[in-house]
């Protein structure tokens, strides 16, 4: 499948990479929100909290959306095709 001129298969992460990404973006966004709330409370400006939280979201998009090499270190090892089997068994 192609989306915006990019083959979506090339944006695929392996299973270990998916696990890493899930943990990473949650830590980034929640961390930035906590930081932003603290900073906003310190200077008593709520818009600062929003800016820092949205900055965290932008960073999470940058780090977790593209399939960086660190998410593709554990490729799935498929089994080799059985030599006796000429073609895939038909499903009814």
């Amino acid at each position, binding site marked *: 499948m192609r*989306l915006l001129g990019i083959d*979506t298969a090339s*944006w*695929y*992460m392996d299973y270990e990479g*998916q696990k890493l*990404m*899930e943990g990473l*973006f*949650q830590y980034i*966004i*929640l961390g*930035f*929100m906590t930081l*932003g*709330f603290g900073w*906003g*409370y310190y200077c*008593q*400006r*709520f818009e600062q*909290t*929003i800016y820092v*939280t*949205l900055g*965290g*979201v932008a960073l*999470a*998009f940058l780090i*977790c*959306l*593209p*399939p960086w090499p660190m998410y593709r270190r554990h490729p799935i090892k498929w089994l080799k095709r059985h030599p006796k089997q000429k073609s895939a068994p038909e499903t009814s």
Partner: protein
Amino acid sequence: MHSALTRGNAIFSLGFTCVALATFLCAVTTVFENPSPVVSVNIHNPFVRNQQQYHRWSQRFDRAYFTFDLNAGTCMPVTANVVASCTTVRLRFTGSQAVNQIIVWDKIMRRDIDDPRISLRDMKLKYPFYDDAHGLRGNNITLSLHWNVVPVAGLLPRNSEGHVTIKLDDQYA
């Protein structure tokens, strides 16, 4: 399955859940805040006249005049959860209706732009003080400062302070 769109959706939804959560926490920080500034109000030279109203020329109504002094400390706390303060000076009087209340002066004080304190001296009424009939002579009027602190999120508290009551003259001036 775990495509770029799925990941984007997960990041986006968690991000905006966090924005909503931060807004809620911001609202929580001012729940127990209750500003109680020192407000002093004085009324000068009250008198009552029997006058034509602008839009009803055939009849005459009671109209009262006075000037007032108002000094108030900061009735708008400069905290994260504040946008502005809508301040009104309200007049409650015994008149021809069951409840008579009008606004005689008002101001919207924006955070960081306007001075959160009020200092008025010999202020004339910004809006005219008419009764609907002839119910002003010899009656009590009560002047007080009311304000709403408009929050970013959360409750809109209604505060009032500095009630002062005087009695109007029995005679038309």
